[in-house]
C-alpha cells in the first residue's frame, strides 16, 4: 500500500541548456555517493561488471562459444560501443538497444536461451560491455533510419502523462536543479547505465529508471525493450551527446 505524500517542487530559474549547462546526474549527488561511485573498489556496481566479465568469457548455448570467442578482448573490441546505442539493426530493420543486441547475440549467435530483461545475467553482461566505454563521450549514430524513432522519443519526453499530468520535460528541463521533496532533480542524462541505485540496492537499467519516474507521475509503465522505451532512450542519448559515460554509476 502506498502512502500519498504531498511533495513540493520548487523550480530554479535556469534557461535550459544555455551554453553547455548540461550536467550528469553525478553532479547532483552528495559527496558520499560521489565517492562511492568514483572508487572502483567501493562501487557496488563493479560486482556486476566483474560478473559480466566472467560471463563474457564463459561458453554458452549450443554453439559452445563465449562472447570472447568472437569479440576477443572486450577492453579493445567493445570499447565505445555502448556510447553508440540504441542503433539501427539491419536484421530486424528496427532500432535496438544495447541489452537487445546482447539478447540477440545470446540467442542467434550463441544458441543460448534469451536472458531476461532486468535479470542478473543480462544486467551483468550489459554493465561489462558499457563499462568498456566509461569516460568516452556519448556518440549517438547519425543514422537517418533512426530519425522517426528519435522524434517519437522527443514527443514522449514532452507529453503530459499519468494522473498527475506531468511530462518528463517539466521536471528534467524546466525544474532541473530544483528539488522533489528532498531529492534534487537531475537533468536525466543517461550517463551511467546500467547503474547501482541505492534505492534499488541493486544494479538496474535505464528503462527501470523510466518506470520509477513514470510511477512517480502515476503514469502507465513503459515495458523494457519496447518501442517506446527504446525511443525515449534514443532521444535521451542524443540529448546527452558528448557527455561522458560513467558505467557503472551510483545514484541515490
Amino acid at each position: 500500500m502506498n502512502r500519498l505524500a504531498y511533495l513540493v517542487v520548487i523550480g530554479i530559474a535556469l534557461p535550459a541548456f544555455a551554453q553547455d549547462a548540461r550536467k550528469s546526474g553525478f553532479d547532483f549527488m552528495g559527496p558520499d555517493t560521489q565517492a562511492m561511485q568514483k572508487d572502483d573498489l567501493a562501487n557496488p556496481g563493479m560486482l556486476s561488471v566483474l560478473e559480466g566479465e566472467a560471463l563474457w568469457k564463459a561458453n554458452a548455448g549450443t554453439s559452445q562459444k563465449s562472447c570472447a570467442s568472437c569479440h576477443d578482448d572486450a577492453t579493445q573490441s567493445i570499447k565505445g560501443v555502448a556510447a553508440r546505442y540504441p542503433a539501427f539493426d539491419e536484421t530486424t530493420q528496427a532500432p535496438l538497444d544495447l541489452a537487445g543486441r546482447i539478447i540477440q547475440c545470446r540467442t542467434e549467435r550463441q544458441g543460448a536461451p534469451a536472458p531476461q530483461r532486468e535479470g542478473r545475467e543480462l544486467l551483468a553482461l550489459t554493465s561489462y560491455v558499457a563499462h568498456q566505454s566509461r569516460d568516452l563521450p556519448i556518440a549517438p549514430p547519425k543514422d537517418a533510419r533512426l530519425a522517426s524513432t528519435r522524434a517519437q522519443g522527443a514527443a514522449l519526453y514532452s507529453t503530459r502523462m499519468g494522473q498527475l499530468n506531468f511530462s518528463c520535460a517539466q521536471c528534467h528541463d524546466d525544474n532541473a536543479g530544483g528539488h522533489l521533496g528532498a531529492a534534487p532533480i537531475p537533468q536525466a542524462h543517461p550517463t551511467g547505465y546500467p547503474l547501482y541505485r541505492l534505492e534499488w540496492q541493486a544494479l538496474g537499467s535505464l528503462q527501470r529508471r523510466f518506470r520509477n519516474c513514470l510511477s512517480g507521475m502515476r503514469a502507465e509503465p513503459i515495458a523494457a525493450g519496447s518501442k517506446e522505451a527504446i525511443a525515449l532512450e534514443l532521444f535521451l542519448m542524443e540529448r546527452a551527446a558528448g557527455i561522458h559515460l560513467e558505467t557503472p554509476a551510483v545514484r541515490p
Partner: protein
Amino acid sequence: MARALINVPQKSKRGEIIEIKTLMSHPMETGFRPGMDGQLIPRDIIEKFVCTYNGEVVFSAQLHPAITANPFISFTTIATDSGTLVFSWTDNKGETQVQTASIQVE
C-alpha cells in the same frame, strides 16, 4: 554465483599498516520486508566475516540486517610476511563463501 571484490595492496613493506577493502555480492535481505505477494521475504544475511593472514585470524566481524546489501567492510592489518589472506563470509544458513588474496611483503 556470488562474487567479491577485494583490495589488498600489491606490494607492502614489512611493518606497514595496510588497508583492506572488501565488497561482497549479497542481498542482505533483512527478513522485515514484504515481497510482491505481501509475505515477508525470509531473512538471508551474511552474519560473519573473517580474515585470516597466513592462518591466523587478524580481523572478524558480526553483521546484522542493518548492514547494507552487498556489504562493504574495510579494515587494517600490519604487513608481516608474504603469504595468503583468506576471506570468508558465512550466512545465516551456515553457508560460507571463501576468497583468497596473496600479499607480497618486502
